[in-house]
Structures are given as structure tokens and as C-alpha cells.
């Protein structure tokens, strides 16, 4: 019996303007519910979810940050150790899309250089209020070499896919990483495959 109940551990941090639905995405994914009157996140929120991908148990540590400016300094300190960032905007809010370059600068400044970034346009259930066209966002994501996905936390569209795809990509990268330097231990803060202490029983 393994000492650990997972094969991979990844830290995922959600960032983006206030009110774009970061917390709802996380809640939908981890708890399967959509909290209607979700208040603004204070500082950081933490959730954990273990998923199985191709027979491997992957533990996702999800740090959901506050979008509000005043918490910026503490949220920034969480980017640093993240394996993946989910940069979220609201497709019904042009402003949240326009702020993306600013967020990218923050990522560049604070996050690990090998971080995987996914651009997520949330709230696709509100099609009639859409302000940011899909093509535009895709173009932007491509230019910044990010993955792009549109989701709806409310309708649970693509939420599962978002996290699972991300987990797959992270596993691939982790494996590649361990292939490249199989001997050396994983970088601190990188997703490390914890499989030591199998000695018991």
C-alpha cells in the first residue's frame, strides 16, 4: 500500500479581475456546485481535488486568489510556486479582457518561468451579453502562447475539461521534465512526483 494517495501534485492558481468567476469555477470543479451569491474572495482561497488520469492519481491544489486590487501583494506571492495559472476573464466584460496584458506582465514578473498558463473566458451561458468575441480571445491566446478555453461555471460547461486538460498537460510536462533530468530532483515548487517511502508494509 502506498504511503501517498496520489502520484502527482500540482499547484494551480487562478487569477483575473474581480468578479469574473474564479471562485465559481473552482467551486464547480471541486464541489460540483454553483454558489449563486458568491461574495468577493478575501485574499486567497484554497481547495483540493484529486482526479485520476490514465490511472494516475493527480492531486490538484487550487489556490483561488482575490481579484481585488488591494489584495494584489498577497496574491502575487502565491504565483511564485504555481505549476499552472488559470487566467480568467469574463466574456461579457470587455474591461476584464483589456486587463489581460496587465495580468500577463504580473505573471512574467512573479510566476515561475515554466508555468503553464491557460486563458479562460468564463460566463458563456450569458451569450446575449457577450462583449469579447471568441476569435479575438483565441488570437490573443495564441499570440501569448497560452491555451484557450471558454467555460461556464453556472452551466458547468468545459469546467471539468479545463482542469483535466490542464492536469494532463502538467503530467506530460512533469514526465518530460523527469526524462530530461531524470536523476536530479524536481525543482522546488515544481510538481514533484512523490513516490518515496514505499518501504512500509
Amino acid at each position, binding site marked *: 500500500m502506498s504511503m501517498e494517495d496520489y502520484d502527482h501534485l500540482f499547484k494551480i492558481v487562478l487569477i483575473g479581475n474581480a468578479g469574473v468567476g474564479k471562485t465559481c469555477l473552482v467551486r464547480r470543479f471541486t464541489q460540483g456546485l454553483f454558489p449563486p451569491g458568491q461574495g468577493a474572495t478575501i*485574499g486567497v482561497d484554497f481547495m483540493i481535488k484529486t482526479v485520476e488520469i490514465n490511472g494516475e492519481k493527480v492531486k490538484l491544489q487550487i489556490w483561488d486568489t482575490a481579484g481585488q486590487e*488591494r489584495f494584489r*501583494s498577497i496574491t502575487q506571492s502565491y504565483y511564485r510556486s504555481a505549476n499552472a495559472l488559470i487566467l480568467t476573464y469574463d466574456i461579457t466584460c470587455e474591461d476584464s479582457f483589456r486587463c489581460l496584458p496587465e495580468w500577463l506582465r504580473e505573471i512574467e514578473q512573479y510566476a515561475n518561468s515554466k508555468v503553464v498558463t491557460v486563458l479562460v473566458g468564463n460566463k458563456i451561458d450569458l451569450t446575449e451579453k457577450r462583449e469579447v468575441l471568441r476569435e479575438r480571445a483565441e488570437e490573443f491566446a495564441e499570440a501569448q502562447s497560452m491555451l484557450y478555453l471558454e467555460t461556464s461555471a453556472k452551466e458547468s460547461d468545459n469546467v471539468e475539461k479545463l482542469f483535466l486538460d490542464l492536469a494532463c498537460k502538467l503530467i506530460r510536462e512533469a514526465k518530460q521534465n523527469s526524462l530530461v533530468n531524470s536523476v536530479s530532483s524536481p525543482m522546488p515548487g515544481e510538481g514533484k512526483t512523490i513516490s518515496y517511502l514505499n518501504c512500509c508494509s
Partner: protein
Amino acid sequence: MTGVCGCCGALRPRYKRLVDNIFPEDPEDGLVKANMEKLTFYALSAPEKLDRIGAYLSERLSRDVARHRYGYVCIAMEALDQLLMACHCQSINLFVESFLKMVRKLLEADKPDLQILGTNSFVKFANIEEDTPSYHRSYDFFVSRFSEMCHSSYEDPDVRTKIRMAGIKGLQGVVRKTVNDELQANIWDPQHMDKIVPSLLFNLQQGEGTESRSPSPLQASEKEKESPAELTERCFRELLGRAAYGNIKNAVNPVLMHLDNHSLWEGKSFAVRCFKIIMYSIQSQHSHLVIQQLLGHLDANSKNSATVRAGIVEVLLEAAAIASSGSVGPTVLEVFNTLLRQLRLSVDYELTGSYDSCGNLGSKVIKEHEERQLQEAVIKTIGSFANTLPTYQRSEVMLFIMGKIPVPGMHPALASAKSGFDCSRMIQVMLLKSLLQVATGFQTTNMLTALPSSFLDPLLSLTLMEDAEIRLLVLEILVSLIDRHDNQPKFSSISIISDISVLKLKVDKCSRQDNLFMKKHAQQLYRHIYLACKEENSARPHFETLYTLLALISMELANEEVVVDLIRLALAMQDLALSNEEMLPVYNRCAVHALSAAYLNLICQLTTVPSFCQHVHEVIETRQKEVPFMLPEGVFTESPSIPKSLDKLEGHLLFLQSKITEVLGGSGYNTDRLATPYIPQFTDEDRLSKRKSIGETISLQVEVESRNSPEKEERTPAEEITFETLKNAIVDSIGMEEQERERRRQVVEKFQKAPFEEIAAHCGARASSLQSKLNQIFEITIRPPPSPSGTITAGYGQMQSRSVPVYEMKFPTCACTRAGGGGERDGTRWPSPAPQPLRSAGGRAGETAPPLPPPPPPRAPSDEAELTLSLHPHCDKPSGSPSDPARHPKVTRTRH
């Protein structure tokens, strides 16, 4: 699996059996105490098995968490805690890995109870002091998670508070665990501090809001329960207390960031509270680092709104007060430099109305009153810092501030525009206020070294400003510098005190250094006191401060000689008010009379010569009856009843020099000296000063028009040196002078006879050069000559159109500060300067002279050229000074 365990239990290793046995059938029963003891005993006797025990317990716990069997989770945790407590430090290491994994597991759970349970265990663990370092432990997750818990937004407020408190305790634990172990993750790294500090501050700040409404009688019973804010504060203090020199920065930076992000500077109180905690908690030898960071932050916020800057300054003020000695650290002047720079910036912002010097980015509106508040705060902070300094550093700082004061004439660029004038004036006022703050409470045993000429000279030169506010500030600075026994409050208001013993004055014997100081600077002081009396715009506070100054000089620095001089000075002031050559308003004359009376009343009692006292007393009594407006009680009231004019004053209303000389001579005072009326003297400093003393131009102007009038010499027989001799001393060729006169005559003739058009054309062609000549002349022209006719000055007056800053007239630019001493504008018996110093002054000037036409060859240096220039304003030589031509107010006055 449990089933399997049941049937092959006997085959299982002993430690597993022991562990299994501590769990009861029903989790409600709690830990099986007896079996737990067995397990503990086993663990202690076979510490090498500890790691396996730990691993197995942790495995069970993970399983129980996954199956939501929380009862067993609690039991497993309790067992772990007990084992941890029971084990010896050395063996803990084997066990910690699995222990931490269990805590992590609990913290990952979304049940608040489990999170709190995990935290509690972690805290227990943190309190164990390990003596073996561990290399591979990582607390990243714990810091992140505890910080997150500090921000918990759980719906139920009670649970939320519990989670947050658990978070704080957890952070405290991490800090305790790691702070002393250099091999472990450095908790002081920004990546940790940026999480820990804001989380703590967030809770501290939350406490502020609730504290106000919480103390209801119902909650009083729960007083023993600590609030999150209190806990946070304790934790924060502990953290800071452990910070070493190199870590302060990382700990304080997030505080600054947090206050920035949550815009908490403006409210001030929270920022002040934070920094009070910081200052009280850190090791005192590091406090200057905090101050430095605050100063750096202030600089970084230079372009931020005034309220933010004021908030930072306020915090600095409080922090400096707490840090007391050593708060400034090794870079004293850097601290003051930063503060003064901020002061200067604020003045600039206020005047330009924009944060951008170019003025095109005026998006933020500058609120003047906010800038004013900021300036006040900065000045107060300067004072607060200065209070922490030893005397010698204080005088250094005073010298430094003095050096920053834009001395008129030294910064011609500043004076070029009206706003430039306003700006330099405001900066002068601000810096003098700062200086006053530093000077307040300044007590030195050695005035001579504490107040070198390089400080006193510029300071005193500012007393000659026409600006009443600046003059008053300088007087106040002098008062606080001279006062060393806190006598100042006793003289703060001017009055006739019939018996000075009620004041309980503290007097020390005048030391040798004091005597030396007075020997060196007394004349200067007297002169400035005297001149200050002559200023038209002096008001009640000025006279009061002058009185205080005089009184303090007599208290602090008086030897016999000084007393004599002071009496002479008082009498000279009386003469000044009497003769009214200055055309002073009646109020001022009465005030000067009152000042002189009040001071003589004081000094006569200090000398304790009965007959002197009697004379003074008599005069004062007569005045009380006949002319109460000549006494301080009459003049310095809300609505003084001042007569329209102040003519015929009977002898018995005045203090008589002859009488005083007589009575003091009887007591062994130097009557010869006393009999000589006081004449403001020029000291070396005056002659050599780069700034020009007032008298200098007079010598030039005398030449212009009253050279032939002998009254001047007659009136002051002591002055044998006429202008002729004076000029001859410099200009050794009469011929040149004659030539000049001839040229001048021609020009005057031309202007008198030529048709207007021609003159206009002529002038137009040379407008610029004329303009610049005029500038030079009016820079030199400090005051008009004492001529009764005033023709020449009137002529100059007509040519001027725009105004020049007052100080420029009084302190012309260095370009024209040569020509040594000279008479005073009013010609009141100023001794003419000796030719010799004049020469030396001229030589000096030659070195610093701005581009001027080369002087006629073998002649004395550039004074000469200047003389020529001033006499021929229309000649088209290039000019050095760019400043505006001006109308001198005094000129107009004499014309009337």
C-alpha cells in the same frame, strides 16, 4: 482491509498491533489510554521504530479522513501529539516526516474542524525545540495554507474567526519552528514574508473595525478568549522581535505594500499602529533600518497624493519618537535631506499645482490645504528626529538646513519670475520653521562651536529681510538657541516687571566660551536687533520676541561688557524711536520705546544697581502717568490708544544716557564705553560676507549726489574718511574718476536737451543693455541715500517699472556684493569702513566675479568696474545679471 487486519492481527508487526490497539471500537470512546501508554513505552524503548509507527499512523489517518471517520482522525492526531511530546528531541526527526504529512492532510481537508485540529497539532510540534537540523523539510505549503486560513471567508462568523485564529497560530508556529534554524527554509525570504505579513496585518486591521463594537456586557464574560487581533499582534511582535539585521527589510516591505494596497496611509491611525508595533518589537539597534525604509517609501511616493505622503510622514514622526536615540542611524544628514526634499517638493507642488514639473500631466488635483498639512507634518517630524540627536549632531543638522535655505542673491534663477520668488520665499519660511524645530530644546554648553559663523551669518542676514514672517522666525530661532535654562517662557510676553525675582530665573555663570562667543558675535547680534526695530512691518510678536531675545542674552551670555553694550543698545533704540529718521509709523515708535523701557527695567534689576533701578523706575512711573502708550502695557494690547503723532517728548519721559552713565559709573561699570552712543558696527563677518551688507551701496550713492555735502562728516565726527578718501583708496587715479564724471555729465546733458524721439530711439536700440544695467544698479541699490532732496533716487525710480523681490534689493546677487562695508542708509553715525578691508574685499570679489567688463588695466579689481557701471547705467557694456529692473519701495518713500 480492516477485516484482513482482524484475522491476521497476530501476524502483524508489533508496532502495528500497538497502534491498532489505541483505537477503540467506537470512536466516541476516545483514545484507549492504557494502550496508548503501551505504545508510548514501546516508542521510547525502541526509537528506531518511530518512523514506522509514524508512517502507519499517518496511513490510518489518511484513510480515516477519506472515509469521513472524523472520530478516528481525532484519536490518531491525539496519539501523534502524545508521541511527539513523549519522544526525545533526537528521535523526533525520524517521526516528523509522517507527522507533517498528517497535518498537511488535515489542512487539505475542507472541514474547518480538521483544519483547526491539524493546526493545533502543528503548533504543539512547533513548540518543541529540536536540536537536530533537518534538511529536507519544506514549510511552503504550511505558510501558504495558514496565510490562506488567515483570510478565511467561511460563512459562519464564529467558525471563520476560529479558522483565522488557527491560521495565525499556525504562522506563528512556522516562524517559531524555522526562525532559528539556518538549514531550513529561510522564513525571511520574501516569498514567505509576502504571505505572512499581509495575512497578519489583514487580521490586525479586521480587529480595528470590530473592536469598537464588541465590548458589550454579554461578551465581557468571554474576555479570557483572545480576539484574533490581539493574537495577531502578539504573533506579529514575536515575528519582528526575531528579525535580525538582514531580515528587517523583508519583514517591513510587505507592511509598506499592504498599507499601500489597502490605502491605509490616509487614515493614518492603522499605519501608525502598525509601525508602533514594529518599532516597539524589533531590536532597538535595528530601528534606524525601519526609519530608512519609511524614508525610502516616502521618496517612492513623491508623486502620490498629499494625504498619502502626510500619512507616511506621520508614521515617521511616531516611529522616530519611539526609536529615540539611534533612530536616525549612521546617516543623519540623509534623513534630514530626504525630509527637506519632501518639503521642497510639496512647496513646488503647491505652487505649480501639479505633480509634474512640466505641468502637462495635471490629472491629479492638488489640494493646497493638504499640502500645507503635509508641510506641517514634515516640519514636526524634522523636529522629532532632531530631538533624538546629541547636541553636536544637532548643530550639524542646523548647519545643513541653513545650507539648504535659498539665500537671496545666491540663486538668481529662482528670483527671475514671480513664482520663483514665491517659491524661494515659501521654502525659506518652511526651512526656517524646520530650523526652529531643531533649535527648540537645543542646549549647548559651548555656543562658540555649536553656532559657527557659517551658521550665524546667513541666519542673521535673513533678519534683514523685509518679510515680517521670516524675520520673526529668525528671531524665534535665535531665542531658542540662546535659551539654555528654559527661561524663555518667562519672557514670552513683554511687560514691565516690578520685581523680577517672581520669575525665578535660572542663571548660570557665563562661561569662558560664552564670553568668547559674545566677543565674536555680540556686535552682530546687537546690530540685527537694532535693525529689526527699524523695520516698518514689525508687529507685536516681533517686539515681544526681540524683548525675549534681549532678556535671554542678558541672562545667558552677559558679562559686564555685554551689559554695558546692551544698555547702550537699549538707549540707541530709544534714540531711534525719538529721532524718527526712518519715518516709522507712530505705533512702531511707541513699540520701540516700550521695548526699550521694558528691557531697561529688566536689566537694571539684573545689574542690581539701586540708583540705576531708581532712574528707570522713575521714568517708567512718569510714563505710566503721562504717556502710557510708551510702555508695553499700553502698546501691546488689543486696541492700543496711540496718539496721532509723537512729537515733543519731555526729557523726564526718556531714559537719559548721561544719567545712566553716571549711576553705573558709580558701580564700577565702564563709563567711557557707556558714554559713547551705540552705533551699529560692522564686524569682520559683515565685510567679508559674500552677501552684501546694507551699507555698501551707500558709499556708491553718496558719491553720486552728496559727495560735496559735508553734513555727513559733521554729524559724525568720528568718521574722518569721506567718500573721497574711500574712493581714492580703491581708485588710485583721480583722472579716471574725472573722466567718468565727464561722461556722465554728457549723458545727462543729452537726455536733458535732446528731443524725446531721439532719446526714445536711442533707448530703444539699447533697451536690453539699459535694462541689464538697471538691474545691476538696483541690485546694488539697497536703500536710497539719505539725501533730503532725493533727486537722484527719484530719477532712478522713474525708470523702473516692474518690481524685484525685496530680498534682492537687500541682498543683491554676488555679482555686486563686493565693495566692503560702508555707511547705513540713514546715515545714523555709521562708521565708514576703513579702506584696508575694502581692498581685501575687492580682492575677494575679483575671484568670484561674474562676467563683467574688464576693469581699466592697472587699477584695483572689479569693484572699480562696478562703480563705473553703476554710475553709467546707460552705457552699453555687457551685463551679468539677468534679473528684472525694479522699483525700490524705499525709493518711493523717500520721494514723498
